[in-house]
């Protein structure tokens, strides 16, 4: 018996062919809708500030004999900042197919380097943003048009609780009743508990009969989306699920630069409390938003996961040429 070789790809030739075909259809989808394909840098001095996203860095050395010395650039966790700068500069409908990088993310559905499709359309709001994502899902996957389900309705349906109001004690109760393994370090952050219940109880049921778009997230999980005042106030954020797998994340985009400055501050404080490095709060995105980002919606989609679902594959490595452990 020969030892398995590391130089070969983990995806079969058939899957690679289907992958290429899917990419053609995706480009066709955007071209027929008047979107311009753009190509923005992977390296930037700016990076998204997210509590749970850890960007990788690259040092642009000036002396090749000291490769660790020089300014730090961030490998982009998504092309969001650069694409919004293009929108603020007058482009109306843009999409991009690019590699994105996220430190520490590796598993059945994660690879630290992956392919992302991201698009923006000026004039879109929550509803039309979800509508465009629904069109794309219906066109590229054989599972029909997504149903729309609010975050609140999903929690009500699976767990009979109101995610916007439930306290930690009641969520802990539910987790215990359902025999969920609870991490020792979970603490008393409501969002950590919501995420645990989402991952353990809600997500597995999403998108089973047909794709599901989950929307109206808790206001403190807004990231870069607009908040719609309530009660309860909700983040105009949406995610597409197919067969329990999260495929895309979209926002009715936040336009207010000062609100973003405030969120950046809060997020950095949380990162510090988590023992993580803070990330630069100044960015050219803020300058672009100060200059005026037109109202729009945008969505990022994990292309590798799309290929996985389209080819009935079991894991990301079956659709990647060389996943990280043989990259």
């Amino acid at each position, binding site marked *: 018996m020969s030892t398995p070789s590391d130089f070969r790809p983990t995806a079969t030739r058939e899957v690679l062919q289907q992958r290429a075909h899917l990419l053609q259809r995706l480009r066709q989808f955007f071209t027929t809708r008047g979107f311009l394909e753009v190509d923005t840098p992977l390296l930037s001095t700016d990076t998204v500030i997210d509590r749970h996203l850890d960007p990788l860095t690259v040092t642009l050395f000036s002396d090749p004999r000291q490769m660790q010395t020089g300014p730090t650039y961030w490998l982009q966790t998504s092309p969001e900042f650069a694409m919004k700068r293009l929108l603020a500069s007058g482009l109306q409908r843009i999409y991009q197919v690019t590699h994105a990088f996220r430190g520490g993310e590796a598993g059945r559905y994660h690879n630290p380097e992956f392919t992302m499709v991201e698009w923006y359309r000026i004039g879109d709001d929550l509803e039309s943003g979800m509508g465009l994502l629904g069109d794309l899902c219906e066109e590229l996957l054989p599972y029909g048009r997504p149903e729309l389900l609010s975050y609140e309705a999903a929690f009500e349906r699976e767990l009979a609780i109101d995610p916007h109001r439930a306290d930690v004690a009641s969520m802990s109760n539910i987790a215990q009743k359902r025999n969920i393994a609870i*991490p020792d370090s979970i603490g008393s952050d409501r969002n950590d508990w919501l*995420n645990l219940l989402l991952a353990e109880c809600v997500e597995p049921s999403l998108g089973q009969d047909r794709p599901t778009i989950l929307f109206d997230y808790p206001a403190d999980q807004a990231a870069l989306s607009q908040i719609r005042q309530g009660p309860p106030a909700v983040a105009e954020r949406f995610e597409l699920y197919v067969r329990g797998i999260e495929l895309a994340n979209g926002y009715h985009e936040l336009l207010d630069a000062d609100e973003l400055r405030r969120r950046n501050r809060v997020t950095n404080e949380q990162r510090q409390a988590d023992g993580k490095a803070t990330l630069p709060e100044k960015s050219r995105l803020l300058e672009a938003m100060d200059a005026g980002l037109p109202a729009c919606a945008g969505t990022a989609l994990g292309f590798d996961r799309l290929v996985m679902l389209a080819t009935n594959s079991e894991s990301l490595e079956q659709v990647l040429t060389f996943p990280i452990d043989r990259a």
Partner: protein
Amino acid sequence: MGSYGTSDFRKGLKVQIDGDPYIMIECNFVKPGKGNAFYKCKLRNLLRNTVLDRTYKGGETLEQADVVEIAAQFLYRQGETFVFMDNESYEQYELSAEQVDDGWKYLKETMVCSMVLFNNNPITMTPPNHVVLRVEYCEPGAKGNTATNVTKPCRVETGAEIQCPAFINMEELIKVDTRTGEYVERVKE
């Protein structure tokens, strides 16, 4: 011993929880939306063989277990005690009958087994996947019956009873798969 952070978590990792050694037999990374990362793990207790379901949040750590695997030669059995020797250090280790479990069925003197040490104490022993054993006693072989699906019990040199095909005779050698306890083939001397 140091510790492993969640980003080190993977199948096969040996860790210590509440004083017991565990091997990670499954680790699934889940990360809902923009939420925190969870590592859903299954861990098998190396002393008791029980399986533990644990979920860890990104940033948690697990203590490393001082677990090493060595090649050990079986020397002899003394009552309920099985004595082995580390092939490299010549150090001797004793395992109880309970720790050896079904392994006694295949143990012949000088056989090299794989042994797991936890804090330098032996905890388990695994014989080679295939061993050749002499048949000490069985009913006479049925001449001409070469079918392997007709079986009969035989007693091998270790004292264990193995199911073998009807054509096997006393004093013949048979190869046995120690993982299933099943007869594989007849071996010529």
